[in-house]
């Protein structure tokens, strides 16, 4: 997880890899992430041919199929700009698993390794590369935070998200019990082992709600869909929000470009 971050001038251009979940299921979080980047004076490039990082096939043991999908993404980022991903697990897939996936092909492996070095999870990029210093806007609020396991263990996102929320000044972060525990999503796991997954998602939803927060935030679309879907089925009004959206709507100068 220890990563060397480039010193030197702030990047002027970045690529945005939205991930298939954000593209189709929570596009507003993608928009908000892009607007946050633009607000920092950065040109955001959205490669039109992007699809999915290939993770569902990779984690299910279908490496050939994962490779076929990953192969397409490898060609999307020709310039040496950072690649920003608004999801820890998809970012982790590209950073940690692409080089392994292409280990047998010298040229592709080199390409995957070069890409791996410039992939950043969104909050990581704000904290470690842009070193932003944001102020909260509006009333003070209390939120809980869930970070996905791959974000936590592969990308260190829990620390970055905490740091961003702490900057705002008017947001109180309420810790939930078993914070580092998985929400039970696990991609195809949620469908293959529905009972275990439901038990985990239910416990996570309970723990987040028990903090007394008005909402919870998370930087991962998969976890959000899992926990929100569970709460909605229970007809509970407590909900989660993508961290990018929360930050866009609750930081000063928000809306400047709307």
């Amino acid at each position, binding site marked *: 997880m220890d990563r060397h971050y480039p010193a030197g001038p702030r990047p002027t251009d970045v690529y945005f890899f*939205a991930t*298939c979940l*954000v*593209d*189709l*299921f*929570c*596009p*507003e979080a*993608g*928009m908000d992430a*892009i607007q946050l980047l633009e607000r920092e004076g950065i040109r955001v490039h*959205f490669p*039109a041919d*992007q*699809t*999915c990082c290939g993770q569902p*096939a*990779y*984690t*299910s*043991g*279908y*490496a*050939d*199929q*994962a490779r*076929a*999908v990953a*192969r*397409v993404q490898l060609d999307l980022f020709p310039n040496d700009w950072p690649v920003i991903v608004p999801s820890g697990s998809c970012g982790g897939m590209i950073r940690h698993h692409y080089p392994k996936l292409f280990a047998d092909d010298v040229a592709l492996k080199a390409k995957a390794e070069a890409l791996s070095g410039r992939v950043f999870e969104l909050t990581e990029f704000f904290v470690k590369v842009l070193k932003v210093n944001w102020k909260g806007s509006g009333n003070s609020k209390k939120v809980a935070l869930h970070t996905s*396991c*791959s974000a936590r*263990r*592969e990308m260190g996102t829990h620390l970055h998200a905490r740091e961003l929320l702490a900057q705002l000044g008017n947001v109180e972060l309420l810790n939930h019990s078993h914070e*580092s*525990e*998985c929400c*039970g*999503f*696990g991609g195809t*796991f*949620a*469908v*293959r*082992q*529905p*009972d*275990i*997954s*439901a038990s*985990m*998602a*239910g416990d996570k939803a309970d723990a987040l709600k028990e903090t007394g927060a008005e909402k919870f935030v998370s930087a991962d679309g998969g976890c959000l*869909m*899992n926990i929100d*879907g*569970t709460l*909605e*089925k229970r007809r509970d009004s407590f909900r989660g929000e993508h961290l990018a959206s929360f930050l866009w709507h609750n930081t000063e100068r928000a809306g400047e470009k709307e």
Partner: protein
Amino acid sequence: MRAHETTHHVQFVPGSEFKRRAAEVVANPFLKKSFRGAMDFLMMKRAAQFPDPELLERQRDLAEHIRRYSLARLPELLEQLEVNLKKNGVQVHWAETPDEANAIILDICRRHDAKLMVKGKSMVSEEVELNHAMEAAGIDALESDMGEYIVQLAGEKPSHIIMPAIHKTKQQIAELFAEKVPGVSYTEDVDALIQIGRDVLRKKFMEAEVGLSGVNFAVAETGTICLVENEGNGRMCTTVPDVHIAITGIEKVVEKLEHVVPLYGLLTRSATGQAITTYFNVITGPRKPGEKDGPKEMHLVLVDNGRTQAFADEQLRQTLQCIRCGACMNHCPVYTRIGGHAYGTTYPGPIGKIVSPHMMGLGATHVLPGASTLCGACGEVCPVKIPIPDLLIRLREEATHEAKPGHAPMFGQGAGKTAFASFAFKGFAFLYSRPALYRLFTWAATRFRFLTPANQAGWTKSRTPLTPAKKSLRDLLAERSKH
């Protein structure tokens, strides 16, 4: 070299039943609460032993190196171990299968006309189902570890590799003792319960002709076996009866005594949050002339049971780094919810998911590697840094595919392959590797979102259906660029 060549009857329930058993446990609020409480306690105890994360990282690096070094030289170290054990007067036996291991032990017992064997805690003896083999031959095999004793009295199997009776409450144990131990009345006083067990066992240690133990580390250079325990029953089993039989997997060997020290320190801290155990037995042979105690005869049975299959593959070999601390199960959100019995394997939890396929074959176990969210908690706490999530992915691949060209098929290779999953992932690759087709798909999925099925198999069992947004991100971006 294959466990499936054995005719031995494995008592464990097949993996296909996993889902049903897991569902039963998660539906039981009492069990769920008690597992959670126990695992929380163990996690807290472990965390208290590792206050300095950087120091822990250095210790884990060292332990990993020792285990990898030992495994890299496994064949030589085993030969060296055998030579030095023999020099120390220990008889060495090799067993490829559970049947062979049981036959060797039974043969030793028969030569000594044994009626009773007292057993220290040994997961390998569980793995080969030694108790059943002894029972079938008319020899009593009595567990002397308190947890194992309880589980044996109840006619059950251990649900955790370190804490075999973790699934039982003191009330259940009180009832069990009152029912099964002659002359005992119901008490929930834990100290009294332990005293009852100790009284029963004390007599048996004196009666038994044979004592059996496991092994935590076998040291090649000195021909020594090390046994880690807390109750003193291990010392009794290895010193009081005339014959001591130790049983272990072939992966437990290290080169030097000094390699044991860092591993031991991490083992006890990771397992029970103890800096050191109450007993640490260093056994280098039977009683020597002039000595006043110790067994007259000592044996070591080295068991393969599928380990050579893991050893043969560079990546899967990492499975054998395990020192059986159980921290992976204590930290596993799946184990915490379903307990050990649901797995249907000797070794439950994350380590069980990666080691059992070698022992029982993927036919019986192919569901297990898939029963994980890959959250990574196991790999994070593993004291010898086994990359458990990577190995789970690898086994998912082996379970659903033919062996790669030039690779020997695993025991049960491809047993989890289904036409549906193959088709689904081929479809996934077809769609997501064709950007134009993918764009058409998202276009259609957003426009026809009202057609999204309300029933989405396992997903909607506890969640509302996943419904595409009205406009995809690329739609929103296209709209914005028009303004």
